[in-house]
Structures are given as structure tokens and as C-alpha cells.
């Protein structure tokens, strides 16, 4: 009896703590959502309260959607999607290919190139942006969507590493059996490795989509024409102190920018949680 009471108490304490922490964690997001419903006039009265004193949902979302500098917000989303789809497609496919080669094929120079790959992971992309800018400028790629996709397109060391770890976890006997049955390397790759690594591939695809979607530094450097702005840059444009009076529109479009990210998270939660957990394990 008393031990079951104790257990109950412990469970109550646990849920109290975790729910409290959960509320703190999501308060900023709920605040943004509720603020995007408030009218501009009442936006900054009792800012902390979540409940709008005056609702202006339609007006905020309409005015935000109509965009900045005469460019509709849909255009920014389209730009970001183009960059993101091209960048992610290349990034994932080429990362998987390299990962398979590094994990399973004994080619000359494998160790050397793999070390190079790891080094690129330790060097932040921010320090490369200046020379990349100069190169892109010379090639006439500044103010093109290609310049935003290119740095991702050829694959990223982090994904090569993640997928390689995953492939290493698959039994090599599978490859050998297939080889005895007359399957070529490429055949093994497409018929065995590719399907079996799908969890790691899904994880990489989602992360790649996220990173490009939210990237701010590269677009800030490579883009100067508002027609080509990505969602991040567009929100930054909203923030311009000279024209910032439509907070409702700004918050509404901030919410819009987060929706794809959170929706994908809710659908593919399992992959993301497991993917992140395994990156730390086998190093």
C-alpha cells in the first residue's frame, strides 16, 4: 500500500516537472503564434499575455502574405523551395555514394580522401564564404539561386559520415552473398545497401532540407536582389527598422516559415530522434 502511494507520488512529481519544463520550452513558440493573431494596435500592450485583446488574424496573414518591397511572400517561398530541392537532392545522393565507397570499397587513396572529408566537417562554412563569394562573383553566379544550392549540392561530410556509420552496421555477408550470386558493386549498392540504409537517408534528407530552409548566412552574402530572396532574407527585410510597423505581418510570416519544419518533424519524428542519437554513439 505505502509503496504504491510512493510510486504514485513519484510519478506525479515526474509529470509535474516535465510538463512545467515543456511549457517553458514551447512558450516562445506559442507566444509567436498568438502574437500573429493580435492587432498591430494592441500588439505591445501586456506583451507577455498570450490571449489577444483584439484579434486580427486575417489582416495579419494577408498583409504578411502580400510581402515586402512589392514582392509577394509566395515568391520567397518558391525561391527557397527551388534552392532547397536542388541542394538536398544532390547533397543526399552524392553523400550516399561517397559513404558507400568509403565504407565498403577498398580503393587506393580511400583513407586519404576520407581524412579530407572529416577535415571539411571541422571547418565552418562561414570562413569559406568570402572566397566563395569572390569565385561566384567572377563566375557571374552572385544573385542566382544556383549559388545558394551549390555549396550543398556535392554532398556534405556530416551526411557521408552518418550514412557510412550506418552502412558499417550492416553485415558484410550480405554484400558477399550477393557478389557470389553474380551481383556487381553497383548492383549491390542499388539492391542491398540503398534499401537497407533508408533510415539514415531519410534522416539526412530531412536535416538537409532543414539546414537549407533556415540558412541565413549564405543567402545574406550571395543575394542582393529582393526578387531572389529566400524566406530567411525576406523575414530580415521585414525587420528593416525604417519600414517596421507591421509586426502582425512579420509574426504571421515567421509562423509560416516554421510550419514546414515542424510539420516534417511531427511526421518523421522517429527517424530524426534515432538519427541524432546514433551520431553520438559509434565514433
Amino acid at each position, binding site marked *: 500500500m505505502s509503496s504504491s502511494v510512493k510510486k504514485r507520488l513519484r*510519478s506525479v512529481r*515526474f*509529470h509535474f516537472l*516535465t510538463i512545467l*519544463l*515543456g511549457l517553458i*520550452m514551447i512558450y*516562445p*513558440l506559442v*507566444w*509567436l503564434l498568438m502574437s500573429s493573431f493580435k492587432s498591430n494596435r494592441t500588439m505591445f500592450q*501586456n*506583451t*507577455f499575455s498570450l490571449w489577444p485583446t483584439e484579434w486580427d488574424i486575417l489582416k495579419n496573414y494577408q498583409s504578411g502574405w502580400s510581402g515586402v518591397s512589392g514582392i509577394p511572400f509566395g515568391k520567397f517561398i518558391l525561391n527557397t523551395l527551388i534552392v532547397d530541392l536542388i541542394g538536398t537532392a544532390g547533397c543526399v*545522393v*552524392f553523400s550516399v*555514394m*561517397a559513404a558507400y*565507397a568509403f565504407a565498403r*570499397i577498398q*580503393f587506393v587513396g580511400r583513407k586519404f*580522401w576520407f581524412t579530407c*572529408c572529416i577535415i571539411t566537417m571541422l*571547418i*565552418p562554412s562561414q*570562413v*569559406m564564404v*568570402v*572566397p*566563395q*563569394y*569572390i*569565385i561566384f562573383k567572377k563566375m557571374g553566379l552572385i544573385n542566382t539561386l544556383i549559388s545558394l544550392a551549390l555549396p550543398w*549540392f*556535392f*554532398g556534405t561530410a556530416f551526411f557521408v559520415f552518418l550514412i557510412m556509420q550506418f552502412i558499417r552496421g550492416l553485415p558484410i555477408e550480405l554484400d558477399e552473398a550477393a557478389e557470389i550470386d553474380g551481383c556487381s*558493386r553497383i548492383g549491390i*549498392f542499388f539492391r542491398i545497401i540503398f534499401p537497407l540504409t533508408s533510415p539514415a537517408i531519410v534522416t539526412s534528407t530531412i536535416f538537409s532540407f532543414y539546414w537549407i530552409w*533556415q540558412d*541565413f*548566412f549564405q543567402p*545574406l*552574402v550571395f543575394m542582393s536582389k529582393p526578387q531572389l530572396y529566400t524566406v*530567411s532574407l525576406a*523575414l*530580415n527585410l521585414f*525587420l528593416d527598422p525604417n519600414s517596421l510597423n507591421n509586426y502582425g505581418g512579420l509574426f504571421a510570416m*515567421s*509562423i509560416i*516559415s*516554421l510550419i514546414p*519544419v*515542424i510539420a516534417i518533424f511531427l511526421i518523421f519524428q522517429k527517424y*530524426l*530522434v534515432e538519427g*541524432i*542519437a546514433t*551520431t553520438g*554513439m559509434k*565514433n
Partner: protein
Amino acid sequence: MTKTAFQSKRSKDNATGYILIAPWLIGFFLMFLVPMVMSLYLSFTNYTMLNVPKWIGLKNYSRMLTDKDFWQSLKVTFSYTFILVPLRLAFALIVAMILNTKHKGIGVYRAVYYIPSIIGGSIAVSIIWKEIFGNNGVLMSLLGAFGIHQKVSVLGNPHTAIWAIISLGVWQFGSSMLIFLAALKQIPATYYEAARIDGAGSFCIFRKITLPMITPVIFFNLVLQLINGFKVFTEGYIITDGGPMNSTLFYVLNLYRRAFTYFDMGYSCALAWILILIMGIFTAVLFKTQDSWVYYEKK
């Protein structure tokens, strides 16, 4: 016969290997090696994008010694990183340990705590922080409701602005938490049982079993988070724009301004190389010390 078959397999492997890594190799040369070499060369020149790069030797590097912004950005970035990383990791570990129990709804909590990590880099989140800690912000209005009227907001005060940005970093403890959680799950339950039978208390168990067993993951997190800390940019750019009084002038923000506000390309390349050097030193030191505190279980 077998030898030639072996040889042909060898050369076939070479061909397949290089075909498969070819796209990555192109990217490595085009997006990494060429820019790196170029950046190294430019760091010894005076280059504004309008002139031909003029070789000036080590002048860019010696100029840093007397550049106030450089030292300020170094100080800001170091304090940010060395306060944020321990805080975030401690928090992540505590929450992971709380979640590493048998209760209902763990999956939901885990997901809720992880969401800030996936959206943390977005502009939207920086905007939220700007509005929470700024003038007319959530904090000011909350304090006002309690009758406390502050003249300056957290972001307006050079002593406190960085703490608002640190709090944004701590808020994103989710991915470290997930890595810790996975590591905690791998500790065999028998270890704990044995310790309990020997009469060890909870704190003793934490210190003697839990902590040593997860040192590899702590190490991994530490390396990753330190590198991430040095890279901070967006938060400083959006929330405070480096201010007030340069109190949030992060290293990369300073580098960005040198390059794209002043078009001082040579100098900013030199700044980039010093950052690489600093990060390299920290990573190397961490790897050197790992023998003395990281425990790898022999299989």
C-alpha cells in the same frame, strides 16, 4: 588465374570507388580546397574586390594585434561559448536523466524538448528572442505587471544582452539531450544493481557509474558544441546587431562586417584563418586530454 582475377577486382574496385566519390571530390575541390587556398593567399594581401590583390605579407595579421573590434569579438565569442556549452550540456544531461525512467509519455516530452533544436537557427526564433527581451518585450511587460519598471531592457544593457543570446542557446539543449539519452540507455542495468547491493547512494552511483560510462558521449558533444559556439552569427546579427556597445559582436559577425560592409577582403580572410587556428587548437587540446578522462569500454 586467381592472381589476375584478384588484380582485375582490385582495379575494378579502384574505378568503382572513384566513380562513386567523384561528385563529392568535385565539391571538395570546388567548394572547399580552392576557396581555402584562395583565402590563405588573400589573407596576405590587400584586396577590396576593386583592385588587384596586393601582397602585404603579414600585415593583416599584425593589424589584428591593435584592432579593438577583433579583441572584443574574441572576448565575446569566448565568453559566449564557454558559458553556453557547459550550461547546455549540464542541462541536457539532467533532463536526459529525468527522462531515462519508466514513465508514460516520455516520447511526447522528448519530442517537445527537441523541437527548439530543429528550429533554433531560423530567423523566426531570433525574432521571438528579440521581442521577448527587447523594449516593449515580454520580459519588460511581465516585470511591469509586477510593478517593477526597468528603464533599460535586457537587450539594451551591454552587461546583459549576451545573456539573452546565451539563453537562446540553452533553450536548444534538445539534440545533446537525445545523444545523452541514447548513451544512458546503453549502460547495463546490472552495474546499477551491483552498486545498490553494495550500498552505494544515488550520487555515488552517478559519479562512479553513470558519469564514467557516458564520457565518450560527453566528449563528442563537447567537440561538436565548441565548434558550433565559435560559429555563432545569426543570433548576434538579428537580435542585437552586435550591440549595445559591441557587447554581442561575435567573431563571425565581425568577419562578415569586415568583408561585406567595408569590403576589406584580405583582412577578413586573415580573420577566418585565425578562427580556423583557434578551433583547431581547441579540438586538438580536447583530443589530447581525452586519454585522461574519457573512458572507452573494451569490447
